[in-house]
Every structure is written in C-alpha cells, then in structure tokens.
C-alpha cells in the first residue's frame, strides 16, 4: 500500500497549501464555422462550442470529487475570431455576444480567443476585430481578448503597438464604471503560444487539432511550504526542493488531464507548468521569493531568485508530464498575488523591476494598475518595451495593464475574485515617447546569433 506519509503529504498540500488544478481548458477550432453570412457564422460558433463543451463543467466537477483535487476553472479557448471576421465581415461584436451565450450555456467561467495575430501586419478582419475590442469587452462578461503584435521571427508590428495603446486606454474608459475591468480581460502578446490554457491570453492556434484538452496547474503555496522546511539550505539545494515539488504538482495535472480527455473523448494536449498565484494568502509567487531569503519582493536579488524558481519549476515539471506546453513558468500578476500587492503598496516593487523580472519568467507585465491619465502612447511604449524583451529572448511576453480611469493617487482598483486588487503603480509620465510611437512601421526581426 502507498506510504502513509506520502498520503498525508498530498492531503496537506491540498488542504493547507492551496494545491489545485487551476484550469481545464478545452481548445475548440472554429475554422469550420466560417460563413459569408455573419448571423449563420455566429450560430455555427454557438452550436459547435455547446456541442463539444456541453459536458466540460460537469466532467470537471466529477473528477474534482472523485480525485479529491479542487479544479478551480473550466474554460474554453477558440480560434482567433479575426479569422472568422475575415470570412464573414460585419460587426465582430456579434461574435463576442455569440461566445458569451455559449459561455452561459456551458457554464464555463471564461472563453478566450477574441483575438488577432498581427505580428507582421494586418490581414482581413484583424483591424476590424481590434477596433471592436473595447465594445466587445464592455458588452460581455466572460470573454477574453488577446492580440499578438510581435514575434522573434517577424519582429514587432509597431502599427499594431500604436493601435493597441489606444485600444487599451479606450477599453479602460468604456468600463470605467466597473473598475476598468475590460483591461483585465485584454492581453497584448509577443510570441503568443497556441496552446495556452490560462486566461486572459488563451486562444486555440491554427496548428492545433479540432478539439483538445489542456490543463494548467498551480501551487505556489506548496513550493513555499517546501522551501520553508529548509531554512539553511544552499540555493542549489533549494532548486532541488523546487524541482521535486514541481514534479509532484505536475503529475497531478497530468492525471487530471488524462482523465478529462478520456471522459470527454477529446485528445489530451498539454500540461502548462505554471505557478499561478491567487490573492489568497499562502498562494503567492512573491512569498516564495521571500521564503528564499529576500526581505520583500522587488528589491535587488529578486530577478535572480525568480530566474532560479522559474527554471527549477520547468526542470521538475518536464519529467512529470508527457506533453508540456503553454506558457510554463512562474506568473507574476501583481493584483492576483498577495505578496506582490503588499510589495507594490509599500513601493518596494516598481514597474521597472517588474519589467526586468519578465525577462526571466513567464509571462510579462501582468495585472498592473497604472495611472488613469496615462496617455495611449505611453501604454504603447510599455507594450513595445515588453515585446522587445520577448522578441530578443525568444520567449513569450505580454502586457496586461489597467489604466485606472477616474481614480486618484493612493486609490486602488478592486476586481474581486481571482483577479484581485492592487494599488496604482507609478509610471514615468514626465517625458513622452510620442514621436517614437508615431513613427510606426515594423521593427525588424532580431539576429539569432552573435548573442551578447
């Protein structure tokens, strides 16, 4: 029989250390829903999603009960909607509304894929979709949007960067009466991945099968608790502890993914090895860094600690799963992480440090409230900087910032639930990148040799 200490360890991880499966995400291709009539196209989208994902939530709940592991979210990602707009024309918001109806019917908490991939330029449907994002996010509740504006192979589409600065700002303005929530559902990517199960950036890539199940694990609390047991270990030994813990967490994800795939009769895609925090105490990535020996997250040493954590999580997780994909790394969403919120409030964690941290972990400047008077070109500047880090380092980076419209200094944004709350962080608004952003055009793809 299984060792009693192993059983106790697992139960302790679940009950005391917030171990959970963060999400089961069903990826659905909508390419066969294209129709030149947008009404028909929307109906096909609704029909296909409800047909394939009708049992997703129920199956997730059954597995949760049988295996005794909390599965927090059941979600859906779909083909970038801009591709459907290309065929049908018409108002893209109709698709957002069809997706919302499908979300209500299936009971999932988010559908991601109100997206466009424009890293090299705009194709038919792309610009229409991007310009409709503020309205789409304002008129729906459970739809997430993402736009890929750069990649290592294509460079950065600065026309799109300029446009996205305006779109982010407009989305915040149009949802200002709801804590600017629209921006919490909008991600701007460089090197977006096609099989990401996590929101708000999930979409179903064109290289994916018709329908697939991805799993995203979590477990910052478990890693923190494991490190706590070794107060005097060297960093090499700590890396081993993290690897062992990540292995166990990932095995759980693999098990749940296989089981969900079997029960739903849908192929299993990938496990995303991410440490995804929640605002709950004991579920924070910042607290792991502090457990490693930093007095607070954001001070010198933070980037090194995070780099080691991120690498060790991957090394431990890779062996535990047959297919690893998605974003796979430690997330650092400020408003969703109790330790980050504290560090931002105290001023120890600043935007510039977060930017440095994104060079060594997934995924980017995530869930950061910025001043409500931040102009669009400054948001574009932030997006361009972050995309440059991703482009040069061949990794995914993203920006999900929330301009806090109508909020004063010292006030906070409070989204509630998993999205959390947080202070408005300082942005340098004294000087402007306006001229640089207005040049537009495309930043050429970087050299992949002579690396220094």
């Amino acid at each position, binding site marked *: *029989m*299984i*060792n*009693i200490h*192993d*059983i*106790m*360890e*697992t*139960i302790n991880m679940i*009950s005391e250390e917030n171990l959970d499966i963060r999400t089961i995400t069903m990826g659905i291709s909508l390419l066969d829903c294209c129709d030149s009539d947008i009404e028909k196209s929307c109906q096909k989208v609704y029909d296909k999603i409800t047909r394939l994902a009708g049992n997703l939530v129920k199956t997730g709940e*059954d597995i949760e*009960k*049988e*295996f*005794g*592991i909390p599965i927090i979210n059941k979600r859906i990602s779909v083909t970038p909607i801009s591709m459907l707009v290309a065929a049908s024309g018409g108002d893209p918001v109709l698709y957002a509304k069809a997706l919302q109806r499908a979300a209500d019917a299936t009971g999932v908490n988010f559908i991601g894929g109100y997206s466009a991939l424009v890293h090299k330029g705009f194709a038919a449907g792309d610009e229409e979709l991007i310009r409709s994002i503020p309205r789409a996010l304002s008129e729906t509740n459970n739809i997430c949007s993402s736009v890929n504006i750069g990649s290592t192979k294509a460079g950065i589409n600065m026309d799109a960067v300029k446009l996205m600065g305006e779109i982010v700002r407009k989305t915040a303005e149009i949802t200002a009466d709801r804590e600017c929530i629209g921006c919490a559902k909008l991600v701007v990517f460089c090197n977006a991945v096609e099989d990401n199960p996590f929101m708000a950036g999930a979409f179903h890539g064109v290289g994916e099968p018709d329908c697939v199940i991805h799993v995203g694990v979590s477990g910052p609390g478990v890693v923190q608790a494991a490190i706590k047991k070794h107060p005097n270990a060297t960093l090499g030994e700590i890396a081993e502890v993290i690897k062992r813990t990540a292995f*166990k967490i990932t*095995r*759980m994800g*693999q*098990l749940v993914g296989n089981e969900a795939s079997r029960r739903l009769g849908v192929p299993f895609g990938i496990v995303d090895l991410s440490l995804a925090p929640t605002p709950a105490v004991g579920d924070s990535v910042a607290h792991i860094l502090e457990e490693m020996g930093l007095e607070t997250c954001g001070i010198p040493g933070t980037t090194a600690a995070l780099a080691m954590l991120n690498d060790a999580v991957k090394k431990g997780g890779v062996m535990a799963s047959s297919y690893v994909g998605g974003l796979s790394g430690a997330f650092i969403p400020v408003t969703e992480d109790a330790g980050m919120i504290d560090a931002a409030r105290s001023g120890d964690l600043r935007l510039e440090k977060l930017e440095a941290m994104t060079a060594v972990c997934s995924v980017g400047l995530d869930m950061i409230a910025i001043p409500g008077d931040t102009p669009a070109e400054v948001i574009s500047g932030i997006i361009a900087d972050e995309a440059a880090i991703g482009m040069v380092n061949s990794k995914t980076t993203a920006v999900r910032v929330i301009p806090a419209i109508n909020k004063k200094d010292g006030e906070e944004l409070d989204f509630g639930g998993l999205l959390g709350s947080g202070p408005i962080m300082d942005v340098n608004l004294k000087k402007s990148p306006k001229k640089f952003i207005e040049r537009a055009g495309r930043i050429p793809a970087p050299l992949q040799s002579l690396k220094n």
Partner: protein
Amino acid sequence: MKTVISVIGKDSVGIIAKVSDVCSKHNANIIDITQSVLQDMFVMVMLTEIKDLNCSFSDFSDKMRLLGEENNLDIRVMHEDVFNSMHRI
C-alpha cells in the same frame, strides 16, 4: 476502482468501527488499513475496493464527509491514482 479513505483528527474510541460501518453498508471492500498517531493527531488510511458499491461514488464520498463532520474528523475519499501518480515514477 480503489480509493483511499483518509481519516485525520483527535483520537477517540470507535473511529475505525464507524468508518468500517459506512463501508460495509455501501458494499465497499476494505483491502488494507494503516493507522498511526502523528503529533497527537490520529491518522488512519484505508484502502478500499469500490467496484461493487451499492450507491454512486459521489454519495459514498458525501456520507464519509458527513460522518467526519459529525465526529469532528477530516475524512476524505480519494481515487488511489492520485497518490500513485504523485509519489511513484
């Protein structure tokens, strides 16, 4: 299918009897039992075969949870595979 029933709480008379009683009423066959006292906490782990269960797994799991709540114990019923996959390569 095999499940692991874990019981954690303050030691008292008759815990195993109560848990076994629920197992027997629902036709769950007990294969193995281990128990020990870790830091004043009573910990009992029971491996059961539930292929001939006379109710749904969900009902069985709920009954155990209720039994736990009535007796101030934490009782969980979990699929054996959770532990196998996590602790064995």
